[in-house]
């Protein structure tokens, strides 16, 4: 790591001011940031430590309407174990948190750090390569290079994958986030945290320099909702997903009444699939139906030279997710 000045803010406004300075980087637990700094693909002159605000920003609160408010510095371990997430409606979030990385990582990694971790593309993550997304080269090297873990849909000029487990789960639950920029607070849909068109030259999130996410909101879910998260990966532990799916469904009188479906790890942003989810509405759960939905979810897939498998495996993961909810 290159040397840096380490800033320990005593309040959110102080953190926001410090983070807005040129060359400053926000840090939560630092598991993603320190990795990038060790690789020297990130060399901030100042690091602003959000952990100094742990007392203020680490909590899971049940709201009066039975939604959840989750502090930005809440750890994945807290998400996995907190009783407030025990209900079937929040299953997707609990499962996504519990399947992330390792217990050692989950004991420190924060919910917002997970959402804002940078893509695992090995070209971007290595100082030995210069690519378009890293603004150090003329093209996406994975597009024509080693791309077995890269995108199969939703890409333009860069085929990186959004690596977060929690993103599809939270999107399936219609989550929102509150952020602080200077002394201004705003609350937006979580989908707005990610760029609409994931171009190479855009950042992987839409936050402005110095903008701090303070909380994630999981609104009250529809009555009798259940949700689940499933993924495929090469190892049982440690590994990022090769494909992921989160869904939330309400079944009443044997028929599916509402449904959300979000894919993860297959595109530069988490991919909500409203058209595929619509096929579920009014139908009785069945494997035939789930196959149809899985096919629809991957209809727009244009796999790369080495990741055709993701389409087949991803469809199986969609089916498994839907079965897990309606079982």
């Amino acid at each position, binding site marked *: 790591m290159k040397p840096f000045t380490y800033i320990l803010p005593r309040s959110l406004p102080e953190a926001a001011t410090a983070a807005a300075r040129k060359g400053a980087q926000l840090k939560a637990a630092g598991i993603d940031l320190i990795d990038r700094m*060790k690789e020297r693909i990130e060399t901030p002159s100042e690091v602003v430590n959000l952990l100094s605000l742990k007392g203020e920003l680490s909590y899971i609160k049940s709201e009066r309407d039975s939604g959840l408010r989750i502090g930005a510095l809440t750890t994945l371990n807290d998400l996995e174990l907190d009783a407030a997430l025990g209900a079937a409606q929040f299953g997707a979030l609990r499962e996504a948190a519990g399947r992330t990385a390792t*217990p050692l990582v989950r004991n420190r990694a924060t919910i917002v750090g997970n959402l804002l971790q940078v893509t695992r593309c090995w070209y971007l993550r290595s100082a030995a390569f210069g690519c378009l997304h890293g603004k150090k080269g003329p093209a996406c090297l994975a597009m024509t290079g080693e791309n077995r873990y890269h995108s199969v849909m939703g890409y333009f000029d860069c085929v990186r994958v959004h690596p977060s487990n929690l993103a599809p789960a939270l999107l399936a639950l219609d989550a929102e986030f509150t952020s602080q920029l200077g002394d201004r607070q705003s609350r937006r849909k979580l989908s707005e945290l990610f760029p609409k068109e994931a171009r190479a030259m855009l950042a992987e999130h839409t936050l402005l320099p110095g903008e701090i996410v303070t909380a994630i909101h999981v609104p009250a879910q529809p009555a009798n909702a259940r949700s689940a998260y499933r993924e495929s990966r090469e190892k049982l*532990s440690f590994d990022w997903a090769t494909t992921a799916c989160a869904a939330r469904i309400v079944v009443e009188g044997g028929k599916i009444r509402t449904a959300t479906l979000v894919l993860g790890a297959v595109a530069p942003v988490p991919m909500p699939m409203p058209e595929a989810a619509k096929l579920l509405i009014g139908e009785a759960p069945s494997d035939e139906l789930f196959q149809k939905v899985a096919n629809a979810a991957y209809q727009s897939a244009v796999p790369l030279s080495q990741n055709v498998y993701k389409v087949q495996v991803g469809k199986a993961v969609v089916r498994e997710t839907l079965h897990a909810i309606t079982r």
Partner: protein
Amino acid sequence: MSLPDEPERRGFSRRAFIKGASVAAVTSAGVAAANLAQAPQEPKSFAIGEHEVELKINGQQRKLKVETRTTLLDALRDRLDLTGAKKICDRGACGGCTVHVDGHAVNSCMMLAIDAIGSEVTTIESLTQGEQVHPLVQNFATCDAMQCGFCTPGMVMSSLACLQRRGKPTREQVQHDLSGNICRCGTYGRIFEAVERTAEGATK
């Protein structure tokens, strides 16, 4: 969080500010009061370079010098000669560096030493006092739960966290709790046995 009294500050420090403000007070009390009310406080910070900090390690306050970029693992190994925790991947991807911070098993290679100020750090060294070894360590030996032994300190610390949290864990729970530690020699089966023996109270 307890911080050293006067860490090096960047740019204009609070002390310099207060000095400046009191000079202003001599010339115009009104203006100085207004300045004080609006002046943004500089956040605490550690400048580039070494800082003497105090960490609580295995129950003892230890003074040591670290840079802002020093990881907890490097501080333990290189500054305090606590070389039980191993540096293998240095990326959170093997568990060789596992220590406890405030009772949680974590990767000390992915944590800044400065972030451990005010926390209780427990390392593998705490499990041996002279000839006295912790039953868990004894059971690792009894079960021959290692080959090269490089992963062992990390395995023991994750096993300890598992036992502390669950008392009598099931095999699945042991596997779950140790899933952040890799053993290249593949001694997992015997490690699980060592944990289970310890849970059953075996000390020999």
